[in-house]
């Protein structure tokens, strides 16, 4: 069991503790919808629904799905949930659906979801898999929201449509255009790197202090 546990930790390290990996892989079509906070939240919720739903089903049926066709089965399950989400959004909030446009079906190509099924949900009991999915999806939603909020505040002077700065604010329009998406994510990743660097430095200092004490 110890070997399994350490394997689990290792995988978690790849997916969860490595924000660069997670952020970039899961972000593919997502940069396009983060030009405003509300779009980001809508896309985050849709992904949440798909991820949790798929993880639940994959985990429940993990003993039944043969290894050779597991990827195809995962994709069928994910695509079904995405289609459900697509039609539900179109019926309930057509305006939001219009903004997100073709990117809702593209949730299927979100490497984060498929990766999660392969790495976790297919190997763990239902309860654990669902908790993991909820955690990942929440983290993803937060990441989207921060990206969308920054871009909307700088590029539109508003948040969730509520004007923040009044008349005289000259919006930095490029932020809500594609280059803004790249730049914002790049800068956020820069902060992550810096944060990690500082943390490593701190840990090294602690380790050095301990060595000099002993």
């Amino acid at each position: 069991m110890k070997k399994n546990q350490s394997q689990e930790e290792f995988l978690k390290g790849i997916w969860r503790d490595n924000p660069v990996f997670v952020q970039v892989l899961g972000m593919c079509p997502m940069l396009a919808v983060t030009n405003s906070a509300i779009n980001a939240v809508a896309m985050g919720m849709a992904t949440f629904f798909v991820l949790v739903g798929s993880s639940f089903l994959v985990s429940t049926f993990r003993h039944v799905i043969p290894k050779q066709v597991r990827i195809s089965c995962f994709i069928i399950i994910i695509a079904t949930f995405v289609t459900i989400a697509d039609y539900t959004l179109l019926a309930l909030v057509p305006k939001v659906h219009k903004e997100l446009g073709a990117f809702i079906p593209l949730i299927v190509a979100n490497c984060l979801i498929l990766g999660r099924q392969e790495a976790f949900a297919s190997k763990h009991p239902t309860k654990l898999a669902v908790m993991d999915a909820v955690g990942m999806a929440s983290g993803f939603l937060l990441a989207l929201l921060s990206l969308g909020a920054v871009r909307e505040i700088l590029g539109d002077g508003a948040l969730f449509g509520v004007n923040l700065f009044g008349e005289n604010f000259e919006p930095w329009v490029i932020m809500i255009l594609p280059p803004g998406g790249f730049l914002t994510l790049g800068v956020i990743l820069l902060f992550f790197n810096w944060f990690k660097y500082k943390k490593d430095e701190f840990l090294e200092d602690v380790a050095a202090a301990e060595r000099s004490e002993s």
Partner: protein
Amino acid sequence: MNAPKDTGNSSSLRLVLTLAIAGLVSGIAIIGIYETTLPTITANKARELREAVFKVLPGVSQMQALVYRDGELVVVEAPDKDEPVIYGGYDEPGEFVGYAMPAAGPGFQDTIAILYGYKPAEKIVVGMEVLESRETPGLGDKIYKDAVFVAGFSALSVVPEIIAVKKGTKSQPNEIDAITGATISSKAVVRIINEAHAAWSAQLPPPGSEPQLRETEPASTEAEQ
């Protein structure tokens, strides 16, 4: 044991069966959600269209779809998929007011889709609504955000064709002030209307003989006066 059952050489039958069942269940789920949401989605689409048509044709409260078949403009319940369709707008008593015509073309960034209202008797455009655009926010998107520009379409002559001129220099009834800083987007809208009008004008019946508002009873068949 938590890993998927490693049966080594799973029989091909089992593989196919699993996929088939997965596909079947998935199909049922998808069809289910589709049927459930279909009425709402259709109603939403119809409502959006009505609102747009009423916006570009002031005074209109009823509408119907018109297509050009066999040399004349006829009323249809549901146009064919690729058939170009325009909409006839009628006021409360059922009198013809004007046409609402969809049109699209390349703008500055990407395709712009609009709906414009047209009165054939006076040969004027009476309203314009942008349905889809990806123009530059803050500049090109003024084609729908700038109320003054949109209002410029409320009595715009199409003879000989609409011309976008520098802001403040409008002098003829067929001229419209372009938006400062968004000349290309403004001119694109004008070009889109001109091209649509050129394509349709030969197919419109002479003023006064437009298709009547068809009553919703299935018995009614005659479309033209």
